[in-house]
């Protein structure tokens, strides 16, 4: 199900690139090129971001006051700008990381990104996973109630969703058990 292509498409489609950039910038100020390289390494896999997408995203973040240009350095071509996250940007990242995602298929890519960014920025990744776990279980309780009161068709539909959510939960548990290992990898 999660072939590299599906996985990569999911990452590109589902994950908020802007907030991922902010998370990378919170760790330290960077040039646009460095942001793209880091993003591609950690989250882009076989489908790197286009430069146009990188600079369009950075422009949007600048307009929103979430990042600022910390320095402009002359390069071989155009001047290179070094971007830094603002207080508003940090607040935005904090809010995004602490808000559970709506449980749905292919969620792992977004969650993976959040966990890596939490580790990179020194936040409590276990807390993030528990918040998500609580959200998943809340939806599972709701589906179980619907199933209990519903006809066979309703039961089968709810069962399908429940099995998917259960798979997500297993992933959350496994990731929680491997946080130390992941943390060492991410900080390398």
């Amino acid at each position, binding site marked *: 199900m999660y072939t590299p292509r599906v996985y990569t498409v999911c990452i590109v489609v589902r994950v908020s690139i802007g907030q991922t950039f902010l998370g990378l910038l919170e760790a330290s100020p960077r040039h646009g090129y460095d942001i793209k390289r880091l993003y591609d390494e950690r989250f882009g896999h076989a489908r790197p971001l286009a430069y146009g997408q990188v600079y369009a995203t950075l422009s949007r973040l600048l307009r929103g006051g979430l990042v600022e240009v910390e320095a402009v350095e002359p390069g071989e071509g155009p001047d290179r700008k070094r971007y830094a996250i603002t207080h508003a940007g940090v607040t935005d990242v904090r809010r995004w990381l602490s808000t559970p995602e709506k449980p749905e298929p292919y969620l792992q890519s977004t969650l993976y990104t959040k966990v890596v960014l939490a580790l990179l920025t020194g936040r409590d990744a276990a807390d993030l996973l528990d*918040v998500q776990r609580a959200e998943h279980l809340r939806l599972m309780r709701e589906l179980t109630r619907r199933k209990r009161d519903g006809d066979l068709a309703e039961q089968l539909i709810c069962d399908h969703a*429940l099995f998917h959510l259960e798979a997500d939960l297993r992933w959350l548990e496994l990731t929680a058990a491997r946080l130390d290992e992941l943390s060492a990898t991410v900080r390398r």
Partner: protein
Amino acid sequence: MNGGTAMNGGAAMNGGTASAATPLLVAEDLHRRFGGTVALAGASLRVDPGEVVAVMGSSGSGKSTLLHCLAGIVRPDGGRVRFDGRDLAALSDAARSALRREAFGFVFQFGQLVPELTCLENVALPLRLARLGRREAERRATEWLTRLEVADVAGKRPGEVSGGQGQRVAVARALVTTPRVIFADEPTGALDSLNGERVMRLLTGAARETGAAVVLVTHEARVAAYSDREVVVRDGRTRDLESVA
């Protein structure tokens, strides 16, 4: 098993002695070691009357030890457990045994039915131990077997019924004395999905009807989804997921 007071008091006593604001069962800062192994390292839990609480955690996390401490089966090394305001450690062994018989019901992963008795006799057993007459005990046992949809196996021995049927007989035995708390340790662990769902639907449905609280130990999320609330045990410590959501 159950019997005595709960049997005589019936469903009316369930939840009746404590308001919704008063917890029925409280564990505070429990510690327990088995030799060099730390099973509990500061576990706490509160269960309100009629509430279904799932205790989740991976193998070896301490969740079964927590259940055994709550039920007065295992004495914690530190911390305390109060049931209906009474400190379990302050009770004599006889008083604790009486409490387990009268107010608690138990469902384990492998039923633990007495193999020499029929299913009907197994369900009637807690009532017989509480000195109820055979006829009345078997009448009540038959009622519960019917509610648990296994009346047809009443005359069979546990070895002659399927795993799912045996587990529903075990649930009937846990409920026959209308206990105030049912402790269920991986009650669907040995069952396939369909039978597991059936056991959970009947167990939680009957508990809600009688007002019994349920402490449900499980590592399966779909089983925990039958609860009102989940608590996770990790390395012997509890975390209430409601508090992080």
